[in-house]
């Protein structure tokens, strides 16, 4: 979550910085250019900072030029007379937005005539007289009055540029004649020149900040989406595509995201709610297919107003999987602890209540069962305690110096016999040059017990288990290989993790043995891993450094 906070702090910080910079530059320009306005005979028309502030603020909020222009036209209304003012704005290569503000109730014909003049004018300027633009209309202000026959009697237009690129054209029209002189036209030209200049700077800063932000979020594992009030995506990182298991890396729109989570999270309503309330919303354990997500919807505010909403998507599948493994592990441990307890309780009950009817031989059987069950309980509790120590990194070693081959020789008869009982042959091949190690002999025996018992357990009747030692110079290597069914590749990596049962559900072990073995070997500074045995089976290898 720390990275998320940094991200949003940077975002808000970046926007504030951009805004501050633009204001400073605008005010400085206004100050230094003041004599020019007078020369142009501006009269009462002054570009006051408050006006520029509101324009840049509006643009900063939505990053939509039309929003900023609307603000300019509100201002224009106060300083020049007109029946209709409006503009055409380029939207992409083949679209124009035409917006008209009506003061007088002019006719539809009047509105259309201004549109025609503006779009033709723009096409002329662009040198694309034949180009076809589809035009989106938007008329606001007073109502259209069809009974007003007045035609366009005064009209002028001014092109406006952003970063030296022609983006649109302003038009001012009146039903009266001779309304607009050079002074008024120059005024409008200056206003738009100033506004577009400021917006260009702001856009450059915003673009830079956005790029920085994009670079930052591109490196995040969490999916990040930044939306404006109209649900337009301002920032999205590649993690979103991969989290949503989408093949296309770009062109994801918000509907793709909303649809992906439909039925699990009402994302659209939630974003609207966050815009309205300013409070963040969190959805945990969101399950889609075989994946789990956590989704956080966060408001980003400027002066108490929510201007953006961020959506963070975290993949929680691994954590959920771990939780599930832990739950299953707990259930299994409880089950496995209860089994010997059930035998102890049942056998003791028989010995007490049926002592008159059961034979002495049976009594001995029950007593042995009680004894064995108690031992198996102790082993399990020991495993659990060992695993807890491994988990906490607190494996205690009581080191002695001894020859590892001696220890292997001491153990081999026991395992040879165990193998014989199950029809598995054990061969031992020790490297005479293996020297003495400084290690905890009891714990090394525990590791050997786990690895060799497993090898015998998972090898079929008639199979082979081999035990080798080898001097590697700085360390001794011990190899236990079997001819059993082996371990699939996808399991190899996780085999030494807690709870993971490697080789089939028939094994009633706790699944802790290999995790404990790994903890013990690593506490000695050694390594343990698994390889495939040739031609079949598994090969467990561990190393112990000499010092």
């Amino acid at each position, binding site marked *: 979550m720390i990275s998320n906070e940094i991200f949003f702090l940077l975002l808000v910080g970046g926007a504030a910085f951009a805004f501050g910079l633009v204001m400073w530059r605008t005010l400085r320009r206004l100050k230094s250019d003041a004599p020019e306005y007078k020369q142009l005979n501006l009269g009462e028309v002054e570009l006051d900072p408050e006006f520029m502030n509101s324009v840049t603020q509006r643009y900063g909020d939505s990053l939509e030029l039309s929003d900023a222009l609307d603000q300019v036209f509100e201002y224009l209304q106060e300083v020049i007379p007109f029946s209709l003012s409006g503009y055409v704005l380029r939207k992409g290569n083949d679209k124009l937005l035409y917006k008209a503000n009506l003061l007088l109730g002019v006719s539809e014909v009047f509105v259309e005539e201004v549109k025609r003049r503006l779009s033709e004018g723009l096409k002329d300027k662009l040198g694309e007289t034949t180009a076809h633009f589809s035009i989106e209309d938007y008329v606001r202000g007073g109502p259209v009055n069809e009974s007003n026959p007045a035609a366009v009697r005064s009209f002028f237009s001014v092109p406006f540029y952003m970063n030296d690129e022609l983006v649109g054209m302003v038009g001012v029209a009146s039903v009266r004649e001779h309304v607009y002189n050079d002074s008024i036209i120059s005024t409008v030209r200056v206003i738009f020149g100033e506004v577009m200049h400021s917006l260009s700077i702001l856009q450059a800063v915003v673009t830079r900040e956005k790029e920085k932000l994009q670079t930052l979020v591109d490196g995040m594992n969490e999916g990040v989406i930044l939306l404006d009030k109209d649900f337009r995506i301002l920032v999205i990182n590649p993690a979103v595509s991969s989290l949503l298991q989408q093949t296309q890396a770009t062109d994801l729109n918000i509907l793709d995201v909303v649809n992906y989570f439909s039925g699990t999270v009402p994302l659209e309503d939630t974003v609207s709610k966050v815009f309205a309330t300013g409070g963040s919303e969190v959805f945990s354990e969101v399950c889609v297919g075989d994946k789990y997500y956590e989704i956080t919807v966060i408001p980003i505010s400027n002066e108490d107003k929510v201007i953006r909403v961020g959506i963070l998507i975290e993949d929680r599948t691994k954590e959920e999987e771990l939780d599930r493994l832990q739950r299953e592990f707990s259930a299994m441990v409880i089950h496995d602890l209860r089994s010997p307890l059930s035998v102890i309780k049942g*056998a003791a009950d028989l010995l007490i209540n049926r002592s008159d009817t059961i034979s002495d031989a049976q009594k001995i059987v029950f007593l042995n069962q009680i004894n064995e069950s108690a031992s198996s309980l102790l082993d399990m509790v020991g495993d659990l305690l060992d695993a807890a120590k491994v988990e906490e990194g607190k494996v205690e070693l009581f080191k002695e110096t001894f020859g590892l081959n001696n220890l292997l020789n001491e153990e081999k008869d026991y395992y040879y016999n165990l193998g014989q009982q199950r029809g598995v042959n054990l061969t031992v091949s020790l490297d005479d040059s293996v020297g003495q190690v400084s290690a905890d002999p009891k714990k090394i025996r525990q590791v050997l017990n786990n690895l060799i018992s497993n090898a015998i357990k998972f090898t079929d009747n008639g199979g082979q288990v081999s035990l080798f030692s080898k001097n590697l110079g700085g360390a001794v290597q011990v190899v236990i290989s079997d001819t059993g069914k082996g371990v699939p590749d996808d399991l190899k990596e996780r085999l030494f993790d807690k709870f993971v049962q490697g080789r089939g559900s028939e094994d009633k072990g706790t699944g802790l043995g290999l995790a404990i073995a790994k903890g013990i070997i690593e506490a000695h500074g050694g390594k343990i891993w698994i390889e495939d045995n040739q031609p079949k089976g598994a090969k467990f290898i561990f190393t112990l450094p000499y010092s």
Partner: protein
Amino acid sequence: MKKILIIEDDQALYNVYATELKANGYDVSNISTGGEAVEGIRNIKPDLVLLDIMLPSKNGLEILQEMKEDEELSATKVVMLTNYGSDENVKKAIELGAEGYLLKYNIVPSELNQKIGGYLGDGGDSPVPLTDTA
């Protein structure tokens, strides 16, 4: 003599239950793996099956489901006898048609005998399926 089939892979535990039930006059037999259970039931035709859940190769709930879907075996009485006491498993077993759900660690042989008497209508406890779940 009524036949009780105990599907249980722990031989020590089977021995404990069998000793008590045989002393009470039942014909007791054992199957120790899940894979052999359904065919074993078909052959033995027991009056009651005591069914463990965690078994090699096929679990007890799968065996129960197969039995209930099998015309010949669906009427055979089954009582779960397990150390898996999750609510989910109890619910599933009862839905599938188990007569009862007994927890091994919670019941001694003499109590088991009484319960079985109830399930088979031989006196003893009347069958109350969920009383022994925890």
